[in-house]
């Protein structure tokens, strides 16, 4: 029986555990198993209903013709073949890969640069860090509209600033060439997360290393190349994987940026903002092609796994492990 009076003071003197007799051990083990399962049960149930079953069913749907109103019709690999012949599918994949490659590289460069700057000994850094993180918590709908406004050719600030710098001022929201960079620009506003992660990593670089290198006459660039970069490289690997996954799945930002009015087409000028997930969403919930959309989801899963695997394999060349 539990003794509540003692429970209120959990940190009283620890007594050695009683030696368990052999007969008790298996019973104790079973009771441990039951407790473990009981405590994990919310997610065991949730995982079964919302993840395991959907994965299985989704694989089946991807082999069917299914429009919600009739029961699924088995069509074999027809959806996958249709995908290969669908130019819009290829366009959405191309846009997504373009966004992923440029987005991941720019996210890394900008967030590391921002972290280095926010790591400088300047008074008020906590406030500056919070300000840089701020765009991340702005509701994404707000971000979408705000950037539609900022990228307005006549009244927006993006082209105004480019004009002041004597740079070309593209029509971001109307030009098929600039649609995808517009999405990129908007997403790069929210690099607060990776920046904070890099900041934490920079705090972790042993100060003695810098001091020793300075004594040896290493300048700031040499110190960065030979100390900072290798030490934070495991974190860089993590950031690459997380941003690759995020960009491959990107949906809301381009979806909102492309929207001109209610139920408008969501691809942007010349489908330049049509990402893979937007096309998947349209197939599922606009055209009700659930089978085709499920097949697309599986291809996305495979692409994600493939890209992640490539990143992990090549990372052996540039990620530095100190044996920890």
């Amino acid at each position, binding site marked *: 029986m539990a003794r509540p009076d003692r429970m209120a003071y959990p940190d009283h003197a620890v007594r050695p555990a009683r030696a368990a007799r052999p007969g008790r051990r298996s019973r104790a083990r079973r009771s441990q198993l039951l*407790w473990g399962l009981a405590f994990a049960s919310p997610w065991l149930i949730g995982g079964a209903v919302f993840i395991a079953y959907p994965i299985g069913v989704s694989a089946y749907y991807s082999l069917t013709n299914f429009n919600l109103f009739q029961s699924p019709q088995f069509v074999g690999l027809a959806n996958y073949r249709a995908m290969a012949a669908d130019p819009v599918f290829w366009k959405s994949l191309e846009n997504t890969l373009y966004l992923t490659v440029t987005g991941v590289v720019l996210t890394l460069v900008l967030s590391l640069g921002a972290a280095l700057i926010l790591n400088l000994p300047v008074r008020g*850094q906590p406030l500056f860090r919070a300000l840089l993180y701020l765009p991340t918590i702005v509701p994404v709908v707000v971000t979408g509209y705000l950037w539609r406004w900022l990228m307005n050719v006549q009244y927006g600030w993006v082209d105004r600033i480019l004009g002041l710098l004597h740079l070309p001022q593209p029509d971001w929201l109307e030009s098929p060439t600039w649609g995808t960079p517009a999405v990129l620009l908007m997403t790069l506003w929210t690099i607060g997360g990776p920046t904070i992660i890099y900041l934490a990593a920079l705090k*972790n670089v042993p100060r003695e290393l810098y001091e020793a290198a300075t004594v040896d006459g290493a300048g700031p660039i040499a110190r960065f190349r030979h100390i900072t970069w290798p030490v934070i490289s495991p974190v860089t690997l993590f950031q690459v994987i997380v941003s690759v996954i995020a960009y491959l799945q990107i949906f809301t930002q381009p979806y909102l940026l492309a929207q001109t009015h209610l139920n408008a087409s969501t691809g942007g000028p010349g489908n330049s903002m049509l990402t893979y997930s937007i096309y998947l969403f349209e197939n599922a919930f606009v055209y009700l092609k659930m089978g085709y959309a499920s097949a697309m989801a599986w291809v996305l899963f495979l692409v994600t796994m493939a890209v992640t695997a490539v990143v992990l394999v090549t990372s052996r060349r540039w990620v530095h492990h100190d044996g920890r």
Partner: protein
Amino acid sequence: MTAVDHAIPDQVADPVAPGGLVPRAASRGARGALRLLAVLVLVAAFAFPFAVMVTTSFKTTGDIFHAPPQFWPTSWTLANFRAVFTEMPFWRYLGNTVLLCGLNVLGTLLACPLVAYSLSKLRWRGRGPLLVVLLATMMLPPQVTLIPVYLIWNHVHAVNTYWPLVVPAFCGTPFLIFMIRQFLINVPNELLEAARIDGASELRIYWTVVLPLARPALATAAVFQFVWTWTDFLNPLIYLNSTSKYTLSIGLYNFFSEHGVDWGPLLAACVLFTIPALLIFLAGQRYFVEGIATRGLK
């Protein structure tokens, strides 16, 4: 997890840390000014769009449609904010969103620590594999499960209700479970053993020992869940059809769509929509940053 333990106090102590502020020589001062300039330019670039949103929401129509754009309004007006309240059921959307946020945070606080406790402090066969499965699901694109899950809710006639937007939180979110687990690992086993020897049931140990100790991790999880639900767009878009049930995200989306490009009221609504997330962020900033740092350095 030592990484995190070191990182956080450092960050707090940093502004008065090495060098920079000690007025030793003139070159020191010049370098300090350069550093400050770098920080200010960076922060200005990120804060500027936000500032434009706020000043535009106080502009008259004439000021808004002025080319080239001006930062400050020539005359300040509250008309855009008044328009928000007359043109869209702002309070209704706000109430719906707060209700959903409350339920989601409640679900997260009930479910995630339970599962995290099982995955960190209970020794049972299958714990290791379950942890691997949990981490693996974080890799799975939500698009794969999106359609079947929608069909499940459709099958039980729960589309256009709040059930699909609330129930998943009561099952626990892998990322938050993992984060709380990483925290619980550092709780000394002696505390739990002592209670066990006293004959306390696992449930009682969990309730009286583990939960109070896990408070910082729970606060982090609550802040994360709040901001996720508050800013969620895709799920309300898929599951809610009737205007009376809309959240602010979808309400704002519809507001834009129906009214074409009525920029003043739209940006005023954006400002109003951002304020609560901003307040929560400022209140829970420390927890937020810790959560992200944990994720990065696992």
